[in-house]
């Protein structure tokens, strides 16, 4: 499976540090074409950073990311932008453009990258909005949407250009149970009907295990476990036990690294 042609994204020995603090210390990840790959881990393990690295917005200190055999960080600006047209990133906040309406937001990538006539753009946009159940909200401004709706609009925008793969940044975080179910169903449907490759970054175990084909567990800048959801749940390793069952303390410490409490309390600042 390692280098066969059904691998779309291949991350090899990735190192990355932000302001001196190492975030990744050599991780390897393979994303299979047409599958839903989940990257899970506690907060602060740099899951969003990984997506930005894949999108070419950040540069690794060491290691490489190949998409369809092309090294993302060796591409010229023009080729990188061409590659980005084949991918979509669904931001946690939705990141809608606040000065234009929902309709124009979804139409934005179409207008920027194609010369389609306005009537065709209208049809496409309404189809995409219909898919996320928000055709009725086309005239609203982003400020008038709830957080869950904004993320669904962002999803409609992400699929506007029919990308090859979508990266979802915490798609379930902060959603009420109903819209959580809607998003879950959408991701599954997009994956099955359009054959989209999906990468989900999340810490919601239940939802993610329900749809993911393969899960990578990140901690301390390394991949500590990988496998199908069932394998991970059954795994005896302390990492997956702690994370999959949600135990407060374990290999992943509850505390952010700090001197001991006694030392801190007794320490008098001068």
């Amino acid at each position, binding site marked *: 499976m390692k280098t066969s042609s059904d691998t779309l994204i291949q991350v090899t020995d990735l190192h990355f540090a932000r302001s001196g603090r190492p975030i990744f210390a050599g991780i390897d990840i393979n994303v299979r074409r047409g599958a839903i790959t989940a990257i899970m881990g506690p907060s602060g393990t740099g899951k969003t950073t990984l997506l930005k690295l894949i999108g070419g917005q950040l540069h690794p200190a060491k290691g490489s990311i190949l998409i369809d055999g092309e090294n993302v960080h060796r591409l010229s600006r023009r080729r990188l932008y061409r590659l980005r047209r084949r991918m979509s990133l669904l931001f946690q906040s939705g990141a809608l453009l606040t000065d234009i309406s929902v309709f124009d937001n979804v139409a934005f*990538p179409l207008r920027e990258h194609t010369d389609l006539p306005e009537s065709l753009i209208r049809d496409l946009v309404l189809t995409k909005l219909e898919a996320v159940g928000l055709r009725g909200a086309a005239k609203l401004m982003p400020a008038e949407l709830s957080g869950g709706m904004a993320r669904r609009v962002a999803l409609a925008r992400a699929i506007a*250009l029919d990308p090859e793969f979508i990266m979802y940044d915490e798609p379930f975080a902060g959603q009420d149970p109903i819209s959580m179910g809607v998003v879950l169903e959408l991701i599954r449907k997009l994956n099955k009907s359009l054959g989209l490759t999906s990468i989900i970054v999340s810490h919601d175990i239940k939802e993610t295990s329900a749809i993911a084909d393969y899960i990578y567990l990140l901690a301390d800048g390394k991949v500590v476990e990988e496998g199908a959801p069932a394998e991970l749940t059954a795994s005896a390793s302390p990492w997956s036990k702690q994370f999959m069952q949600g135990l407060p303390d374990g290999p992943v410490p509850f505390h952010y690294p700090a001197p001991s409490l006694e030392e801190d309390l007794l320490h008098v600042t001068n």
Partner: protein
Amino acid sequence: MSLIKQLSALMQHLGQGGLNFFQRLGRGHLLLLQLLTGLLPSLLRPRLIIYQIYMVGVLSLIIIIVSGLFVGMVLALQGYNTLVDFGAEESLGTVVALTLVRELGPVVAALLFAGRAGSALTAEIGLMKATEQLSAMEMMAVDPIRRVLLPRFIAGFISLPMLAVIFSAMGVLGGYFIGVGLLGVDEGAYWSQMQGKVEFGHDIVNGIIKSVAFAFVAVWIAIFEGYDAQPTSEGVSRATTRTVVHTSLAVLGLDFILTALMFGD
């Protein structure tokens, strides 16, 4: 001992400040380079530029017209009081026009522009950055420098010289209302003295060159501060303040240099 410690802390602080300054200077010029290389493709999308001319130019029109009128009126009042002592109140038109066209028009228009349009540009771009809109555009394979920054850069660069010319013209009219209408300066003398002394190629063209230079600096600072802002609400508010302060200082300093070069014979 503690003095040495404090001194070394001070040195470290100064060194850090200096490093930050040069780093920002470098980033500012890199951004300028990126803006200039994207200039031609951006000109092919006039719609975006027209929208931004509306945002930075048209919306600044009222404040420019009103301030221009008032500044011209004040100049006429003050100038008249001084000139009348020498029996030279006929020269009022010259005084008002030369002051406006050479100095106050370009400078005050640029300062008002920094407060009205520059701060808005910084806040808008900074907020787009803070809410990940710029990042989202980048991921949609749309270059935010060309799609967001450049139309604003071009629009500001076009708008400010026009606003400065409007400011000067309104000031001359304001001076006319006060000088001729209220203080009784002869109408013919007001205009003819002005026409005798103000030279298009020298005074007016140099005034316009000044405002073009100010426009470049003001828009560059505003856009850089927005694009370089810390993506938090505090960072954006600080960037907005910096835009107004830095633009004002840069405009006044540049004005001195340009005046010395143009009128310093």
